[in-house]
């Protein structure tokens, strides 16, 4: 398992979140989640402009053997979606923290205590391995 990027925040549902300079956040799923799902064949993306609630369903990632919801770690409005995933969903497997990003949200504010630091998420993964 590759090392977790240190500049991201994480959730219990294996999503990651990056704070961008303009105040928006970029969201994807972690390498752990992508590996567990297997080769992704389809990503259902939300529409730009759509509002999402914290904890609400935001996207669906589908592999040949499973389909899983991606939840919004924070409330916001969809500012951009990674259109390239429509033709190339396996980008999520290849580069989950980079080219495999899923959604960018405009947000009102972010309560970081609701999210996990890289260390805390690593601990969660270690516990899952046990």
């Amino acid at each position: 398992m590759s090392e977790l990027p240190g500049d991201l925040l994480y959730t219990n549902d294996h999503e990651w979140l990056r704070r961008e300079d303009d105040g928006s956040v970029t969201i994807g799923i972690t390498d752990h989640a992508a590996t567990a799902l297997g080769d992704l064949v389809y990503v259902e993306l939300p529409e730009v402009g759509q509002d999402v609630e914290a904890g609400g369903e935001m996207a669906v990632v589908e592999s040949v053997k499973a389909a899983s919801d991606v939840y919004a770690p924070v409330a916001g409005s969809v500012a951009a979606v990674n259109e390239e995933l429509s033709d190339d969903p396996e980008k999520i497997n290849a580069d989950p923290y980079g080219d495999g990003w899923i959604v960018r949200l405009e947000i009102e504010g972010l309560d970081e205590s609701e999210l996990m630091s890289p260390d805390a998420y690593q601990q969660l993964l270690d516990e899952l391995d046990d």
Partner: protein
Amino acid sequence: MPFIPHTEKDTREMLAAIGVDSIEDLFDEIPAELRIDHLQGVPEALSEMEVSRLMRERARMDGSPLCFIGAGAYEHHIPTAVWDIATRGEFYSAYTPYQAEASQGTLQTIYEYQTMITGLTGLDVSNASLYDGASGLAEAALMAVRANRRVKSGLILLAPGVNPVYEHVAEAIAGSQGLTFEWLPKDAKTGNVAFDELPEGKDPVAVVIQQPTFPGTLEDVDRLTDWAHEQGAFAIGIANPLSLALLKAPGNWGEQGVDIACGEGQPLGVPLSSGGPYFGYMTCKQKHVRQMPGRIVGRTTDLDGKPGFALTLQAREQHIRRSKATSNICTNQGLMVTAATIYMSLLGFEGLATVARKSHENTTRLVEGLCAIDGIERLYDAPYFHEVALKFDRPIAPLLASIAEKNILGGFDLSESAGSDALLVCATETKTDADIDACIAAFAEAMA
């Protein structure tokens, strides 16, 4: 005998394992007053011999009348080979088998079926079939809500030619899931949609267009499909698959074609059989396939590069998506589809077109004969396929009863939905000129 393979010993061991004395104890939490010990109208069990006798007596009551009733289910000649092959042990199963990939022949049959139905409807993908045409409409409406995400109204507009029974069924299935169904205005002269009165700005999620319509007319499907798309709605086409051997495929209606097509597959080799089992077909554009319900068979290659067939896109389905599945449909009408595939293979496209053309010609002969009788005329001024609504100058029911005495079923009483004394008649390729003339003579006598 109930089909429960456990022996009494098995049952005792299982009960002991969970610490319960009797099976009855498992139902303790259901209060006594909510329990019924028998179902009203359902008699005590009969033996096989008694049931066989009862069914023979009932079947005798049906007789074999000359049938001019259509209204959604049609009598066609089914070559003997169809059911001879379909009921072979290798095929004879009601549903998609479990461990489907172990049954390559069954999967290939479904794959061929899908190919034929997409060809007839002019769309990209087909599922392995649904229960019937009516539930197919409910599934198509729910699918439109999922796929046409921009529209949140849940409003489905129905052209006046949609089978009223389909509306009842769709409402029963989808009405409790936030969908509402509304009829579009009808042109009294043609029976088709009244284009001048179409409502603007209702933000419908889908518009349902049936061709041929329930009362048999041909709708201006191109114009109505384009109108649906101008409203931001999906177009859902319901078509009699046999008619598609002659008429334009739903995938080619209007500028863009319909988004989803569905309908009743019964005319393709399935006997009337007192109302079922039939099967529903459903096809759609490729881009909506992830929102399609039901099973889909795909062609693939195995590890040695040999072609094979597999269920595909299964993440739509209940065993994977659970409550988020596109539908609780996780099977198909396998046996009916097998028969339909054999039927289509035996007839070929030319054969289907011949059946369709002959049905049109027979209906024309029947309608011309009937309209020569005083008091009978066409209800609508519109082209038709193989079914026509007729207006009568007197109540329908006594006429039909009188004609039934001559062993002729004269048509479907349309008076309730038409709001006047009206009859829907259909003469498929199964009728000879003599049959048709006998029907006309029976009406002439009853009307005299």
